[in-house]
C-alpha cells in the first residue's frame, strides 16, 4: 500500500554514490593513511589491543577526548609507548584539542579530520547522524555545527548539481544557507554549468515547529521508532517480537518489501494489511500441491527463496505489531492520544491539565510527562502561572529535584514557558525587536528573545488550517490529507509550511504566518533562473531539517507527493522522547 507515485513522478537521485564515496574515503583513510588493521568500537573501557598504534575515529565530543586521554595516560603509567591518532568526524573542534592539551596528552596524539557527514539511511533519506545538534544549537546556542551543515550542502551541490530554487525558515537555516553560498562562491566553477538534478531545496529549523515533533506517532514507521527506537536505519527487535529467545537487528528501509508497503500507513490499517498478506503468501505456498516434478523444480529454484524471505519479514512485522498493540492499544494510550488531540485543537484545557497532573502523580514516565507539559505550553502560548508552578512542583516531587535544571533548559529553548501578562510581553517584544535591528545586539538577545517569543500556535493553526474539519469519521484507509499521520486530527505544521511555500513558489501571502512564527527576518527565497533544469528535476525537493525530523513528517511529505517527490536530509531522525531527553538533566 505504499503510496502509488504518479506515473510521471521523478526518479530519485542516486544516493548510493554517497555510500561509495564514504566507503572509499574510509578505506583510504584507515588502511592507507593510518595503517589500521583491526577495528574496535570506542567504549568506555581499557583498550584491549596490543598494537603499537591506536587510531580513534570519533565524534568531536569532550567525553571521547577524556576517554582517549585516560587511555594514553594509563599507557604512560604502565611505561608503554605507542602511537595515538585521533580522526575527528566530521570535523575537529578546538575545544577537543584543548581537552587533550589540558589532560597532558596533546603531544602524544596526532589529529586528523574526516569530513564525512551524509549517511544515506534510505533511498530518500540522508542523515548526518548528529543527535547532539539539537541541544548544542537550540539550547546552548552553539553555532559550530553550522560549518558542517554548509559543507554537507556544498557536497550535495557538487554531486547533484546546483539547486535552482532555495527556500528556508529559521535562524540556523539562514546562517547555514549563507555560509553554504559563500563556500560555493569561493570554489566557483565547480557546480556552475552543471545540470541541476534536484530542483528545490527547503531548509527548516526544528524550533519553527516543535509541536509536530512532540506528538505521539501513529504511522507505522514512527510508531516503531517511538516503541523500539530505530537507530541509524535499523532496529533491535527483542524476544517479544521475534518470538524466540534472541533479539534480532533488522534494517528498516525500502529494500524490506513488506516494511516498504506499511511504513507510511496509519497503524490501524497495518495489522489487517499484514494478515491479508499472510493469507496471500500461504496461497502461494499452497500452489505446490498438485505440481509435477518440473513445476516443482521451477518453484523451488525461482520462487521459494523470495517467498521464504517475505515470510520471515512478514512474521517479524506481525510480531512487532503485536508487541506495539500490547503496549499502545491499552486504554491508557487512547486517552493519551485523546488528550494530545484536545491540546492540538485547544479545547478542554482544564481537563487536559488534570490529565497531565495525574500522569505526573502516577509517575507514568518522566519523559512522557515532560512531553505533555511542553505540548500544553506551546499550544497555549505558555502555561498560566498557577499551572506552571504546580505542574513543576508535582514533577519535581515525582521525578527528582535535579529537574529544576531541566525546566531551566526547557524555558531557555522556549519549550516550556510561563504565560506573561499580555502587555508586559509586548513591551519586551518590541524592545527586543528594536535591538535585533542592530546586528551585534541580535546576538546578545538571542537567548533572551526565545523567552519573549510566543509560539502563537493557535493563531498559526487557524491561518494554515492545521485542524481539518471532518464530517463523520476520517477514513484512515484512504487518507485525504497529511493529517492522516495524526489520525486525521492535525496536519503537521512543518509539512504544511513546506506545502504552502512550494505552491506559492515563495513566501508571498504568508507574511502573517511568518510573523507569528517569529521568523520575520528569517524566511528566505532564492530562485535562480536555470534553463538547464529539466522538468523532472523541478519536481524533486530536498527538505533539510535542522535539529531533526520525525518519521511522521517524512511519511506526510511522502504522501503529499502530487507529482512532486520529496527527499530528506536531517541532522538526525528524532521523536518526542529524543527531544525531551536532549533537554533533560540527569544525574551523572
Amino acid at each position, binding site marked *: 500500500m505504499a503510496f502509488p507515485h504518479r506515473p510521471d513522478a521523478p526518479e530519485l537521485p542516486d544516493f548510493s554514490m554517497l555510500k561509495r564515496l564514504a566507503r572509499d574515503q574510509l578505506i583510504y583513510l584507515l588502511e592507507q593513511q593510518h595503517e589500521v588493521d583491526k577495528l574496535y568500537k570506542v567504549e568506555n573501557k581499557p583498550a584491549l589491543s596490543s598494537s603499537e598504534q591506536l587510531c580513534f575515529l570519533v565524534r568531536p565530543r*569532550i567525553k571521547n577526548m577524556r576517554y582517549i586521554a585516560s587511555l594514553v595516560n594509563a599507557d604512560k603509567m604502565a611505561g608503554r609507548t605507542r602511537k595515538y591518532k585521533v580522526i575527528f568526524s566530521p570535523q*575537529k*573542534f*578546538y*575545544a577537543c584539542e*584543548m*581537552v587533550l592539551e*589540558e589532560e597532558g596528552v596533546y603531544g602524544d596524539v596526532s589529529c586528523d579530520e574526516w569530513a564525512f557527514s551524509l549517511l544515506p539511511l534510505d533511498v530518500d533519506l540522508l542523515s548526518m547522524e548528529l543527535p547532539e545538534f539539537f541541544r548544542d544549537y537550540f539550547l*546552548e*546556542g*552553539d*553555532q*559550530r555545527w*553550522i*560549518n558542517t551543515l*554548509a*559543507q554537507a550542502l556544498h557536497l550535495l551541490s557538487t554531486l547533484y548539481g546546483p539547486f535552482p530554487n532555495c527556500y528556508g525558515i529559521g535562524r540556523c537555516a539562514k*546562517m547555514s544557507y*549563507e*555560509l553554504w553560498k*559563500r563556500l560555493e562562491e569561493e570554489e566557483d566553477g565547480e557546480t556552475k554549468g552543471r545540470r541541476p538534478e534536484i530542483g528545490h531545496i527547503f531548509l527548516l529549523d526544528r524550533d519553527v515547529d516543535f509541536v509536530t515533533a512532540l506528538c505521539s506517532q501513529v504511522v507505522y514507521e514512527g510508531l516503531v521508532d517511538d516503541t523500539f527506537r530505530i537507530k541509524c536505519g535499523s532496529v533491535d527487535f527483542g524476544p517479544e517480537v521475534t518470538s524466540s529467545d534472541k533479539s534480532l537487528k533488522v534494517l528498516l528501509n525500502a529494500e524490506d518489501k513488506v516494511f516498504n508497503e506499511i511504513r507510511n500507513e496509519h497503524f490501524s490499517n497495518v495489522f489487517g494489511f499484514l494478515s491479508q498478506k499472510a493469507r496471500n503468501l500461504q496461497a502461494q505456498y499452497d500452489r505446490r500441491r498438485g505440481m509435477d516434478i518440473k513445476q516443482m523444480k521451477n518453484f523451488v529454484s525461482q520462487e521459494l527463496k523470495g517467498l521464504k524471505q517475505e515470510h520471515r519479514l512478514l512474521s517479524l512485522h506481525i510480531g512487532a505489531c503485536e508487541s506495539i498493540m500490547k503496549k499502545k492499544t491499552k486504554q491508557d494510550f487512547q486517552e493519551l492520544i485523546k488528550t494530545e488531540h484536545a491540546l492540538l485543537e485547544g479545547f478542554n484545557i482544564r481537563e487536559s491539565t488534570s490529565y497531565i*497532573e*495525574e500522569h505526573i*502523580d*502516577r*509517575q507514568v514516565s518522566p519523559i512522557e510527562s515532560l512531553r505533555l507539559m511542553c505540548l500544553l505550553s506551546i499550544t497555549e502560548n505558555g502555561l498560566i502561572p498557577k499551572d506552571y*508552578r504546580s505542574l*513543576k*512542583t*508535582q514533577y*519535581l*516531587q*515525582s*521525578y*527528582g*529535584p*535535579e529537574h*529544576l*535544571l531541566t525546566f*531551566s533548559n526547557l524555558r531557555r529553548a522556549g519549550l516550556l514557558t510561563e504565560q506573561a501578562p499580555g502587555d508586559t510581553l509586548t513591551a519586551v517584544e518590541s524592545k527586543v525587536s528594536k535591538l535585533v535591528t542592530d*546586528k*551585534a545586539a541580535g*546576538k*546578545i538577545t*538571542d537567548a533572551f528573545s526565545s523567552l519573549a517569543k510566543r509560539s502563537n500556535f493557535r493563531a498559526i493553526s487557524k491561518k494554515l488550517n492545521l485542524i481539518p474539519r471532518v464530517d463523520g469519521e476520517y477514513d484512515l484507509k484512504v487518507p485525504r490529507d497529511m493529517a492522516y499521520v495524526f489520525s486525521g486530527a492535525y496536519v503537521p505544521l512543518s509539512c504544511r509550511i513546506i506545502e504552502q511555500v512550494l505552491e506559492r513558489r515563495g513566501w508571498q501571502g504568508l507574511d502573517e504566518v511568518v510573523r507569528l512564527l517569529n521568523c520575520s527576518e528569517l524566511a528566505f527565497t532564492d530562485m535562480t533562473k536555470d534553463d538547464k533544469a529539466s522538468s523532472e528535476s523541478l519536481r524533486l525537493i530536498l527538505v533539510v531539517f535542522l535539529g531533526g525530523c520525525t518519521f511522521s513528517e517524512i511519511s506526510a511529505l511522502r504522501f503529499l507527493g502530487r507529482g512532486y517527490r520529496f527527499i530528506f536530509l536531517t541532522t538526525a531522525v528524532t521523536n518526542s522522547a529524543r527531544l525531551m531527553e536532549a533537554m533533560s*538533566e540527569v*544525574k*551523572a
Partner: protein
Amino acid sequence: MDCYTANWNPLGDSAFYRKYELYSMDWDLKEELRDCLVAAAPYGGPIALLRNPWRKEKPASARPVLEIYSASGMPLASLLWKSGPVVSLGWSAEEELLCVQEDGVVLVYGLHGDFRRHFSMGNEVLQNRVLDARIFHTEFGSGVAILTGAHRFTLSANVGDLKLRRMPEVPGLQSAPSCWTTVCQDRVAHILLAVGPDLYLLDHAACSAVTPPGLAPGVSSFLQMAVSFTYRHLALFTDTGYIWMGTASLKEKLCEFNCNIRAPPKQMVWCSRPRSKERAVVVAWERRLMVVGDAPESIQYKQLTIQVLLDRLVLRRLYPLAIQICEYLRLPEVQGVSRILAHWACYKVQQKDVSDEDVARAINQKLGDTPGVSYSDIAARAYGCGRTELAIKLLEYEPRSGEQVPLLLKMKRSKLALSKAIESGDTDLGEQGLVFTVLLHLKNELNRGDFFMTLRNQPMALSLYRQFCKHQELETLKDLYNQDDNHQELGSFHIRASYAAEERIEGRVAALQTAADAFYKAKNEFAAKATEDQMRLLRLQRRLEDELGGQFLDLSLHDTVTTLILSGQNKRAEQLARDFRIPDKRLWWLKLTALADLEDWEELEKFSKSKKSPIGYLPFVEICMKQHNKYEAKKYASRVGPEQKVKALLLVGDVAQAADVAIEHRNETEMSLVLSHCTGATDGATADKIQRARAQAQKK
C-alpha cells in the same frame, strides 16, 4: 652548401659534433675559478662563486666574497661571507643557494643574496665535521648529502621538509671513499660509493656491495663517478683509464671505453640535449676534455613548466615581463597576473625608503581586489621586515576578516584580532576555532578581570567560552556568571554542583543553600523554594538512613514516601506527606500503588474507607485487576461513581451488569463499549439486550 657542415667534426664512426660560442660571459672575475667553490643552478639558472680560502693550508686574512651571477654572467649579488668555512655550494630546485659549512650548518640565500634561513645537519655532523657534501635534486625537492670526518653519511632528501637520515656504517671503511655520489631509486635517495676495487650502495637500512655488469677486470680503484641528471645513468672512471657507462640501477651496461689516461679526471658529467638519443659523458682533466658517447636510447627531459618559468622571472624581479607572458598565454588570473602582482607587492614592502602610506596605497592601487591576491600574505611579509604599521594598513584591505587574525595575533593585537575573528564568524561560522585561538591568547595575555570585560563585549565569544568552561573549567564558569550578575545561571551551577561535584551531605546542602540564595537574587522564588525543599529532604533522607537503614538519599519525594510505606513506616510516611504538603491526589495514588504492590488488601480496604477518595474508585479496580485480584476489584467496582461504572464493571468482567448500567444510562458510547466486550456465545444474550435497547431508543 658544404659550409653548413664545415665546423662539424667526426666523433667515432657515425656521429659528429661541433663547437661554437653561444654567448660570452659578461662577468669580470677577480678570482681564478679554480680557487673558487662554484655552483651553477640547473636549467640555466644562476651561478654562485665563493673564493675558497679555507682550502689552502693557511687561511687568508680577508673575508671571502660570495658572488652570484646570472647564467650569462650578469652580476646579481655580492656579499661578504661572515660565517664559518664553507665546504660545498649548491642550488635548490627553487633557486635557493645552499651553503654547507664545515660544522654542518646549511645557510640558505635567495637569488639576490638575501639571507633566508639556516638549518643544521645534526649533532653527529657537528662533532665530526663535514668532509664533503653534495646538493642533489629529486622529484620531491632538493636534498643535501654529507660525508663526515668519521666517514659516515647523513642526508636529507628534501631541505624544504627537513628530515635527517643517518646512513648505516660501511664495514671496514677507514678512510674517505675515493669517490661517491647520490643516486635516486624508487623515489628513495641512496649513496653509491667506491672503496678500492669495491662499490657499495647505502640505503637507510643497509650497506650492500654491488658490481657493475660487464666491468672490465683489473680495476683496483674507481677515480670518478657521475650519475645523469635524471638518475638513470651512471658512469665510472677507473684507475686503468677505463670508462664504464650503464644504468644507475647497475643492471645493464650501455658501453665502455678505454681512454688510456690514468690520471684522475677533475670532473666527469653526463651531457646531452633534450630529446636527444645520443647519451654522452664529458670528462675533463686539467688541459683536456673528452666526450664519450653512444647508447641510442629514447630519453625525455622534464621541461620547465610555464609556472616554473614564471617563478624564475619573478625571482629575477622581472615582473612586467612575467605579466606580459601571462597575458599573452591568457593564463587565468589566479595562476597568472594575480600571483605575480602578489610577488611584486611582497617585494614592494621591503623598500624601506618609501613611507607606509605610500607603499600601502601603491599596492592597493595595483592590486585592487584582484582575485587570488592575499593581502594578509603581503602584510605578513611587511611584518617580517619589521613594518608593523604597514602590515596593519595592508590587513585593512584583506576582505576576509578571518585571514587577518593570525597575523594580528602574531603582532600582539589580540583585541583587534578577537573582533576580526568574530566579524568573520558573522558570515563564516566555521571559524569558531579562530575565535577560540584568539580567546586563549587573550586569556594568557590579560589579567582575569580584563579578560572577562573583553568577553562581555563579545557575546558570541562569551557563549563559546562558556561552552568550553562547562566541560573543562567549572570554576571559571562560576566566575563568569558572577561577573555578569547572572544569578539564575549561578543558581543552576550550584544545583549541578550539589549532585555532581559534592559527595558529603553537608557539602551538598551547602551548595544547595548557595543556589537558593542565588535564585532569590534572580527573583526566581519558585526555584529558591524548590531548592530549600530539597535541602530539607536531603537532611531528612540522611536521618532516615541512619535510623531505618536502607537507601533513601537521592530518591525523589514521591519515592521516599513510597519506600517508607513499603517498609511499613506508615506514620512516618504520613508525617512526611504533611511536612512537604504532598497534595491529596498524589498521596492517594501513591498509597494505592504501594499497598497493592505489597498485596496488603486489608490495609488497602481500610485506606479506601478512611475518607472519600479524591481520585475516585476506578483506580482501585484497575490496580487490583493489575495484580489479578478480581475478588478485591469487585469490592471497589460497586463504589465507582456512575460515570465510570460501566468501565469498572467491564474491567472486572461483569459484562451483563455493565450492559444494564449502560442501558439505564441510555448512553450510546457506553453501549458500544459494552458491545465490543461481548465475546462468543456466553455474552450472546447481553448483546441482544443492548441491540434491543438501541432499537427502542431509535424508535423514540
